[in-house]
């Protein structure tokens, strides 16, 4: 599990760019408002929401509590079904496994269903470097692949672009007309381009929503049919998934499915729920001749090692937390860097990639708790953010990668002074009297205040403290 030295991700620059891009902000605002309204309609019955959510949380926690056993059981049952199971500790191993499968069979074109894990692997670029064309087939992913971008949202990857921008992109890359293209016409263009690719590709690569240990089944959900295409038409199907995703029993899928689709897009169910339990077998008429499952760790076993941070792994990737996040909706998905934006990204990315690379992630939150309230598996995201802040300052257990990398002596000293002042009545009185005297005299443009007052009005301190005023009025303060 070696990690190459990374550059620190400049979150602040991303935030700045996001905040000043008015088209981007309008695109996000519209999209997130729509998603929030649709989700709310699906959970109108608070009783049902509470019970379903408790069930979802329990299923995920139960699976995690038996994770190593379930992974072995999944492997055993998949193997019995004819699925080849591979394990990868890091990105290099996972990419090498996939490249090996493709090269051995002389495959030069693969079609891909949506998979966030494959984004973690930078799989497309890696395969491209080895002369293998990897084509994204989910419409949103197809668009951002053409644009050479990363997904800005884990469910709606191209939601930062409007139809004019997409029509221009298609015109530029595919030679279609940029004029008068609505969503329907643009979708038809992509359908036409990809249909031939599905028919002729050598392999399909997909993610997995729920791998089921009990039956050795890979459950994939989607609306477009691209996921079914890539797992059905090409002769080889390769599925990649994080080790944390496994669930124990087939019936566990039903409440999670209900929570996932409703939370993600406000749909009672997606168009397709595709349950794959092996390549074509016996007298089956079609389906791939080979199915592979690549189980990836990429730092998840480290997240697992601590019972508190382990809760991060309950995530079912519904994106509700980002849809409801006041920070995400304003800065957009790209500001976060990494694969997972929004609240889940803020807790997952620094744990997978290290606090040194993503030092600002835990602090880019007001801890407003909006994400916690909508998370369908009840991940205590805010609590986790506080934990990561402590870890960064070297005040945690050291469980998180690069713990202690972000401590500041100045900050430590400031808090120490604060604690001393607030624990001594005399020091407190002196300090607040000084604040009143000095605070109002300081100009808003004073060096340390300038940045803060550039977007806020400087507060005026009252002539005397509330404590004192009340005392003068004769209010007892015992």
């Amino acid at each position: 599990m070696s990690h190459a030295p990374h550059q620190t991700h400049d979150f602040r620059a991303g935030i700045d760019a996001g905040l000043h891009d008015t088209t981007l902000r309008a695109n996000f605002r519209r999209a997130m408002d729509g998603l929030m309204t649709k989700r709310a309609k699906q959970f109108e019955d608070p009783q049902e929401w509470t019970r379903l959510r408790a069930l979802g949380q329990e299923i995920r926690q139960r699976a995690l509590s038996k994770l190593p056993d379930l992974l072995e059981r999944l492997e055993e049952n998949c193997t019995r079904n004819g699925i080849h199971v591979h394990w990868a500790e890091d990105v290099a191993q996972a990419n090498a496994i996939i490249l090996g499968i493709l090269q051995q069979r002389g495959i030069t074109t693969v079609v891909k269903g949506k998979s966030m894990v494959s984004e973690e692997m930078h799989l497309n670029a890696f395969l491209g470097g080895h002369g293998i064309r990897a084509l994204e087939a989910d419409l949103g992913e197809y668009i951002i692949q053409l644009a050479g971008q990363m997904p800005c949202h884990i469910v709606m990857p191209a939601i930062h672009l409007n139809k004019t921008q997409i029509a221009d992109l298609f015109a530029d890359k595919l030679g279609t007309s940029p004029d008068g293209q609505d969503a329907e016409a643009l979708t038809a263009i992509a359908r036409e381009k990809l249909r031939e690719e599905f028919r002729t590709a050598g392999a399909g690569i997909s993610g997995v929503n729920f791998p089921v240990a009990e039956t050795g089944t890979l459950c994939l959900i989607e609306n477009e049919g691209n996921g079914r295409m890539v797992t059905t038409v090409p002769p080889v199907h390769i599925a990649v998934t994080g080790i944390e995703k496994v669930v124990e029993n087939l019936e566990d899928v039903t409440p999670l499915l209900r929570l996932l689709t409703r939370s993600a897009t406000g749909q009672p169910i997606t168009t397709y729920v595709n349950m794959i339990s092996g390549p074509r077998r016996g007298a089956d008429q079609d389906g791939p001749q080979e199915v592979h499952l690549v189980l990836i760790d990429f730092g998840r076993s480290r997240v697992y090692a601590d019972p508190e941070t382990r809760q991060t792994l309950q995530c079912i990737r519904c994106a509700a937390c980002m849809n409801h996040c006041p920070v995400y909706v304003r800065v957009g998905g790209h500001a976060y860097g990494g694969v997972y934006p929004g609240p889940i990204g803020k807790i997952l990315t620094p744990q997978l990639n290290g606090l040194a690379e993503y030092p600002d992630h835990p602090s880019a939150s007001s801890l407003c708790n909006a994400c916690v309230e909508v998370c369908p598996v009840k991940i205590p995201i805010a609590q986790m953010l506080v934990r990561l802040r402590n870890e960064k300052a070297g005040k945690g257990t050291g469980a998180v990668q690069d713990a202690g990398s972000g401590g500041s002596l100045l900050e430590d000293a400031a808090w120490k002074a604060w604690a001393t002042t607030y624990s001594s009545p005399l020091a407190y009185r002196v300090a607040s009297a000084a604040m009143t005297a000095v605070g109002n005299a300081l100009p808003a443009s004073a060096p340390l205040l300038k940045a803060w007052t550039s977007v806020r009005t400087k507060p005026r301190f009252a002539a005397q403290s509330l404590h004192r005023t009340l005392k003068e009025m004769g209010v007892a303060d015992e």
Partner: protein
Amino acid sequence: MSDARANILRRLRAAPAGITQPSSDWSVLRDRNWSMEEQIERFRTMAESVNARVIDCVAPDDASRPLPSWDAVLAEDCAANGVRRLAVSAPLAAPLQALWTGSPNRPDIILTADRDTLFSVDAGLTTARGGIAETGSLILWPGPTEPRMLSLVPPRHIALLRTSRLHPTLWHAMTENGWAGQMPTNVVLATGPSKTSDIEQTLVFGVHGPKDLLILLIYDH
């Protein structure tokens, strides 16, 4: 790569025990006591809400209800939508051939699992193992008599569903029929035609899968 396997499992096993959840209350899924009529109405409403078309019919030899025979509805719909080449599920080929022999203007019945042929037909006709009332979903169970591609690749998908095979929820369908002990290589739940809202969240039907889904709901309960 067996090292990776051993290393991952070792790290996971070394972790301290965390939260355990011995058992759960499943009543939120179990307590769906809909009558047959409620299930049919719920199925129809949910399927139509995502643009599936649901037409009530009966088996050709059933005179007990004042509903058209499914093969007549099928022929009419194919004619209305210009379906000339209809790929069919194996068990339906012979009965359909017999029912349609001698009638003019019937589409060609194609029995094949050939990929390129399926990419070129106008519609695919499949059976459905069951239906899910809660969400308006079809349970497709492809296998030796029905290629997986039949419900996916042609631009139109037509499915036969018997009312007696409706279940309140996926959980009921799964647990009452013991799916866990007999999963075939592929089971698909299909709810409406394929769709996307990836561009400005505008809903568009017909992306990579079928753009039209017709459910012939055969009353047999």
